[in-house]
């Protein structure tokens, strides 16, 4: 059942929020020992909020499609009175006095928060193989990683523990788990969703967004969380629209860019075939597929990496005297960031401006781009390299090289499942649009889903 179907059942009083929440908590109880998707389960407050939602709806106070729906948030969103670890030792006992903006907005929309989701330590990595709280496991194959850093979010949605989960994305951390876990994941435009109260990793690259079972559910969550917030200095006043695509929406005439360079040069054969199939389906639905030459994406990845390393090291430098509190992989990255000279960071930001201006040319040619989300399907837990196109490649690199540039440019990017590999693992399609083009990106994704681009449920 999708979030919207559950919402309809609640509104028509065929189900109660208390029942839905009880089912969600039962599912978490049953599956979390195996998947380790949740770090904290807020059963008591969740059940109380569900009863309140039922009373509100009975009294005719309907707050919208999230009202009474069980959801969860990555454990870097501050939650008043509830421990918020960011998957780290340094925040192990941190109990915030306030809610993150996203949590406030979900609560105002009537959502029922049932817990805090596990993640890669400090959101600085893509495996969610956490040295402090254990690995998160992929519901499609528990021997494999769910991706990260929002690994618990991907696993919880794929395992149908919750209808929606919030993640954060600094270099792919919503879209990589969406790709590996077979869910939808949306990284909105930078500034579209407030970062207030989300423990930062890299301030100019951090984005907040939802993971859900389908595209329209992601749009429904975006409707609830988008908008200006004066507490976030990067928050945008760009108008918020209704992001949920209408049923049977059309993509006739939409110009879809098929990248001539970079994205189809080195990737797993089954991933390539599934993504090309989804693009062909878009064409059969009336979209125009146009080849487009993109600026140097490898250069963008390098610039994005420099900014990420420097900003993350600046954010966490004060903690680095306690080196034993960090996992080896995160510590190694923070050390690299500390070593970068200020000139490297500033030149990376100069290059970023130049690349941002250059990229505008692309949007005069096409309305959106379609690419694979990741070059691979989910690797096994503990694997550090994987074969891609006949060569061994670092797992982090293979998982992030198609997603990182959109953080650098701040552009909206959606990952949606578009097929399964021969070993039964999900494959992700990425749809990227111009700044504040979420409505179009979601419409294209929804039309593809309506056209049969989808995978069967995991559970």
């Amino acid at each position, binding site marked *: 059942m999708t979030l919207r179907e559950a919402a309809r059942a609640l509104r028509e009083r065929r189900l109660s929020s208390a029942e839905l929440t009880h089912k969600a908590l039962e599912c978490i109880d049953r599956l979390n020992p195996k998947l380790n998707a949740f770090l904290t389960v807020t059963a008591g407050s969740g059940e109380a909020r569900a009863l309140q939602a039922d009373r509100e709806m009975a009294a005719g106070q309907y707050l919208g499609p999230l009202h009474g729906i069980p959801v969860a948030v990555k454990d870097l969103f501050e939650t008043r009175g509830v421990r918020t670890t960011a998957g780290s030792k340094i925040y192990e006992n941190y109990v915030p006095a306030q809610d993150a903006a996203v949590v406030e907005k979900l609560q105002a929309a009537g959502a029922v928060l049932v817990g805090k989701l596990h993640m890669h330590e400090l959101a600085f990595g893509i495996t969610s193989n956490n040295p402090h709280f254990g690995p998160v496991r992929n519901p499609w194959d528990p021997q494999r990683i769910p991706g990260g850093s929002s690994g618990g979010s991907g696993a919880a949605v794929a395992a149908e523990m919750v209808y929606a989960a919030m993640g954060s994305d600094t270099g792919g951390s919503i879209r990589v788990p969406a790709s590996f876990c077979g869910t939808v994941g949306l990284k909105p*435009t*930078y*500034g579209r969703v407030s970062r207030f109260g989300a423990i930062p990793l890299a301030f*100019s690259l951090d984005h907040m967004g939802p993971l859900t079972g389908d595209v329209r559910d992601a749009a429904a969550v975006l409707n609830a969380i988008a908008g200006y917030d004066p507490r976030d200095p*990067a928050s*945008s006043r*760009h108008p918020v629209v209704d992001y949920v695509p209408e049923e049977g929406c059309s993509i006739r005439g939409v110009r879809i860019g098929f990248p001539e360079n970079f994205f189809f040069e080195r990737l797993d054969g089954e991933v390539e075939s599934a993504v090309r199939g989804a693009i062909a389906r878009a064409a059969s639905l009336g979209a125009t597929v146009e080849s487009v030459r993109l600026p140097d994406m*490898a*250069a963008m990845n*390098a*610039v994005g*990496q*420099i900014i990420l390393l420097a900003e993350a090291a600046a954010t966490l430098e004060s903690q680095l005297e306690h080196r034993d509190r960090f996992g080896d992989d995160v510590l*190694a990255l923070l*050390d*690299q960031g*500390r*070593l*970068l000279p200020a*000139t*490297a960071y*500033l*030149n*990376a*930001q*100069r*290059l*970023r*401006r*130049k690349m*941002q201006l250059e990229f505008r040319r692309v949007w005069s040619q096409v309305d959106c781009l379609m690419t694979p989300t990741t070059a691979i399907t989910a690797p096994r837990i503990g694997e550090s390299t994987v074969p891609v196109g006949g060569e061994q490649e670092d797992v982090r690199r293979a998982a992030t090289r198609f997603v990182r540039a959109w953080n650098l*440019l*701040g*552009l909206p990017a959606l990952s949606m499942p578009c097929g399964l590999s021969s070993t039964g693992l999900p494959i992700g399609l990425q749809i990227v649009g*111009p*700044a*504040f083009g979420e409505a179009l990106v979601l419409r294209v994704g929804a039309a593809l889903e309506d056209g049969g681009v989808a995978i069967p449920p995991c559970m």
Partner: protein
Amino acid sequence: MDESNDWKTRAAAALRSLEEVFLPLARDLPHGVEPATTFRADAESEE
């Protein structure tokens, strides 16, 4: 080797391949390109 500097040696080695891509890009930057210090996804429409 001084143990307190071990992390610097390791980090410098890890950065080498990234720098091989990045440093030529930075060298070729023309004058007049200023850093995106107040980053906006769509700077023109925001300003």
